Structure formats: C-alpha cells, structure tokens
C-alpha cells in the first residue's frame, strides 16, 4: 500500500458523489416523499427524513384508486411476456446459433433489421389487425405485441451465451445417444440459465414499462396496466403528490427487485451480446 494524501482522492470522490446523487438521489427523494403526510410534503423548507412517517398515502392508493387492478394487470402481462419471450427466443436462438440451419445468418440479419422498424409507426395498422381478430381490449394483445418486440432482441442477446457453450458437448451427448430435442432441454438449457434469466428480466421490464401499445390496444379501465393507470392517477390527483409518490414507489419496486437478483447476469449478458 502506498501512502496517499487525502486531497489527492478528492476529485474521484467528488465524481462518485455526483454520479450517486444523480442516479440514486431522485429515487431517495420520491421514496421519502411517499411517507410524508400532506402538510410535510408541501413544506417550504423540505425535510430530508419524514418527521412523522405515515402509510396514509399507500392506504389511500390501494383503497381509493384503481391502482390494485392496474398492478395486477401489469403483473399478468409482464409475467406472460417474460415466459413467452423466453420460449420463443430460446427456440429461435437454438435453431439459428446452435443447429445452424442453412441460411441462418441471413435470417438472423433480417430479424434484426425488421426489429429496427419503429413500432410506434406501425400502431395504426396494428390496431386494425387486432380489431379484425377481436383482440382489442384484451391483455393477450399486449402480450403478443410485447413478445414480438422483445423476442428479436432477446434472440440476439442469447447469441453470446450460446457461443460460450463449447460444441464438443453436443457431440459427446450425441455419442451417448441423446436426440437433438433431449440435448436442447437436458444439456444446453441448464447451461444457458444466466442467458435465460437475462432474457426474462429484459422482457419483464420491457412489458412493465410499455406505454404506447398499452394505451391504445386496451380500452376498459379494469384491464389497463400501470403506465396507463399511473398517468391517469397523475391527471386525476394533480395536487395529491404524496399519493402519486406512493404510486410511483410501488410501480418502481417490481421492476427493480427481479433486476437485483439477476442483475449480475444481466450486465454480463448485455456486454457479452454487444461485444461478440
């Protein structure tokens, strides 16, 4: 260990302080705001810690608004999206990058290019198509759209994970008499667990935050997801910031929790996909 003067570390500490404040500061501020009562949250000199912490905002959120139903819808849609995205993208990645079907590289390229087409610009005909098959105002419509927009990216994300699994394993398994499907499910799938969790978290988070399609493809109030519901609450209760903060905290937590569990793999997965 070399001796360092304390002030020599000051610039670095200051940079860290700035980054931490920018990233975590706003989250800290909304969290404590959610626990403040109506008087304290509007005080001229804001308090850094609630002087009289209260759960009143949360009680009102879950009893006086439709928030619980928005929350439940978001969970249903996000979990289904994550499940089907994993299914579709794992299968496609296995075919493209492991079985290496003829023309697979071209197909993978076409899939990525098609995925680059901005989804918002397709909203109008998509609405018509869903209306034709009577999927408007169903949660199924949201799951289908979400899967279509997450699976291509996730397939590409899985590429790095597939490339990391040595191909010798296949041959060893084939020698042992395992068919291609058994090989996929028994040997490759378990090795791909980090990749699968990355994809699941990405799809869950994408669905949890998706606003544009959810705002048009679902009409009834009891089927709306959180992004639509919370913005409706924002419009209705403009002056009740405590209630809004409680709603925001409850919207943020389900997105952060799965991420904290799979975050390590997630960062690895994103960087592996980007670099290879």
């Amino acid at each position: 260990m070399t001796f360092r003067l304390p002030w020599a570390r000051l610039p670095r500490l200051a940079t860290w302080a700035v980054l931490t404040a920018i990233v975590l500061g706003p989250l800290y501020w909304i969290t404590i705001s959610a626990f403040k009562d109506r008087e304290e949250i509007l005080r001229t000199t804001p308090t850094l810690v609630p002087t009289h912490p209260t759960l009143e905002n949360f009680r009102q959120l879950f009893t006086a608004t439709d928030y619980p139903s928005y929350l439940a819808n978001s969970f249903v849609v996000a979990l289904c999206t994550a499940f089907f995205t994993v299914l579709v993208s794992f299968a496609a990645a296995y075919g493209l990058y492991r079985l290496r079907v003829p023309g697979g590289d071209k197909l993978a390229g076409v899939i990525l290019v098609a995925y680059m087409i901005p989804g918002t610009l397709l909203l109008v005909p998509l609405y018509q198509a869903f209306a034709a098959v009577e999927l408007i105002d169903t949660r199924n419509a949201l799951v289908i759209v979400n899967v279509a927009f997450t699976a291509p990216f996730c397939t590409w994300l899985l590429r790095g994970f597939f490339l990391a699994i040595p191909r010798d394993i296949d041959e060893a398994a084939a020698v042992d008499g395992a068919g291609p499907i058994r090989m996929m499910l028994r040997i490759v799938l378990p090795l791909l667990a980090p990749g699968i969790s990355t994809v699941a978290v990405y799809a869950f988070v994408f669905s949890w935050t998706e606003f544009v399609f959810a705002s048009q493809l679902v009409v009834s109030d009891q089927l709306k997801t959180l992004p639509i519901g919370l913005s409706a609450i924002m419009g209705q209760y403009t002056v009740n910031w405590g209630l809004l903060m409680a709603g925001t905290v409850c919207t943020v937590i389900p997105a952060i929790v799965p991420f904290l569990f799979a975050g390590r793999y997630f960062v690895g997965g994103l960087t592996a996909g980007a670099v290879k």
Partner: protein
Amino acid sequence: MTSRSAAAPGTGEVVPGTRPTGRPATASGRRRPWRTHLLGYGLVAPLVLVMLGVIGYPLLNTVLLSLQNQGVVGSASTFVGLDNYTRAFGDGAFWASIGRSAIWLLGNLVVQTIIAFGTALLIGRNGRWARASRTWVLIPWVIPTVAVAVIWQWLSNSNYGIVPKLGAAVGVDGLGSPFGDSALAMPALILMNSWHWFPLGAVVIFGALRTIPGEIYEAARVDGADSWRIFWRITFPLLQPVLFALGLVGSLWSFNIVDSIYLVTKGGPADATTTAPVFIYGKAFNQFQASDAATVSVITIILLAAVAFFYIRVAKPKEDA
C-alpha cells in the same frame, strides 16, 4: 448407452431413402441430417410468425392505408392514390416535427454518449463501491418511463419541487418547471430521457472496455504516453465497433420514443416537443386521421432508413484498420 454409442452422431434415427435428393448432405464437412434442419426451422418459426404478424403485416398495411382516406382507425375507406402524400409533403407541421425529431435524436445521442462514457470509466475502476455501482447504476433504465415522468415532474415542480428549492438555496431564484416552458421543454425532456437511458450505454461501453487487454495500456505507459493520448490512440479506436453499434441502435430507439414525451408534455407546450412519432400518434388517435398518420409513417420510415444507411456508410469502422 454402450449399444447406441457406436452409431455416428445424429444419424441414428435417419431412415435411408428419406433424405431429399439433390441437396448436399454436408455443408461444412459435418453431417447435417435433414431432420435436424427441420427441427431448426421449426424452432425459428414461432419468432418469424409473431414478427410477421406484428411487424410485417402492419408494415404492408401502413403502405396500403396511406393510399386510402380512412378517418377513425378501422373505419371504412376508399382508394385515393397519392393524394395523402401530396398533402403530407406540403404539411409544415409534419416537417417541423421531423426537425424536432432530429434535435431530439442528436441531443440524446450527445448527452447520453458523454455521460455513459464517463460513467463507464468510473464503474470500471476497482473498489467495492465501483463493483456495486455496476448493478445500481442501471436502475434509472430499469424503472418504468411513467415513473421517470412522475419523478422529474415532482423534482422540478415550481412550487414544491426540490430542484427549484436547491436553485434558490444557491441563489438562482424563480426556477419554474421547465416542462411548461416552450423554450425549455425540449432540452428538459432530453435531459430527463438521458437520465432514463444512459445506464444502458454505460454498461455496454463498460463491457467493451473490459475486453481491452491491460498489457496494451502498460506498454503505452512504458512508452511514455499520457492518459489523454492513451484514450484517443488506444481506448477510442478499439471501442469504435461497439460505439458504432450503440450509436445506431440507440439512435433508432431514441427516435422511436413516444412515452417519455407524451407522458410529460403530450407534445406541448404549443407543439414544442412534438417529434415525428408523437405527431403520428396524435394524428391517428387524437385527430382520427388514420390514413394521414399512415402516410407520414411511411415517409418517416423511408427518411429513417436513408439516415441509417448514410450513417452505416460514413461511420462503420473499417475491418482492416
């Protein structure tokens, strides 16, 4: 196990004679039975089908719709040829929204690249806080856009927000909410959106930095290069492929954004934040002009493809460099 292990890999189940004639059995010297190919295509099929249904078919329909005169989305319509295009090309509001999209795209690109690069260099250091930061720094990206919108409206609220109060504390009085000011709304939204998206770029750049072997830096340092030269001569060129991909994908993603803008300003005040996707969204679902929306969608996709093509031609790193 031992009885079947004598069979050649993968060929055990193939019945002789069922292999289609005319197709070479081997592509790369490795045995690829047609059943494996069939399985492979079968596995890719769900992805292709869902993309055809949700992206391919609507794309085709956008073009068809742009040649008709549909009002409310899904209502009856007749064929009108290129009338919509003539109208769209003469529509000043549309071109203004394209211009705002360009500002939005460039603003987000510049702000996010700078912050992401700085953050990547910071979280790549050693130490417990740096290691932990690789996870928590992604939180702004993970949280829903609607939460981002509420958070920043609360922080910048002119009466009760913490940002105007901190401003007043250091002597900057009268900071109002920037989202209500037609001159400040766009820069404010770009900053808010950059807060939401920069972590993704930071983590990708961080991952790319890790792939640069430390010996290169040490060799450069032994040769007497300073940090500035090392960055521009070694780090930056080696990162170019990743920065190129990130610039392309990130720009397309940020161009596409409606939610960040719509949730805060709905395109206002006085259209100051109406980018092309917001313009299209409003035309289709607030003004009920489905065909006009489809027409400007087609023009926008073509413009976007042209810009992407130009970007790839100009910025793609040379393989042999």
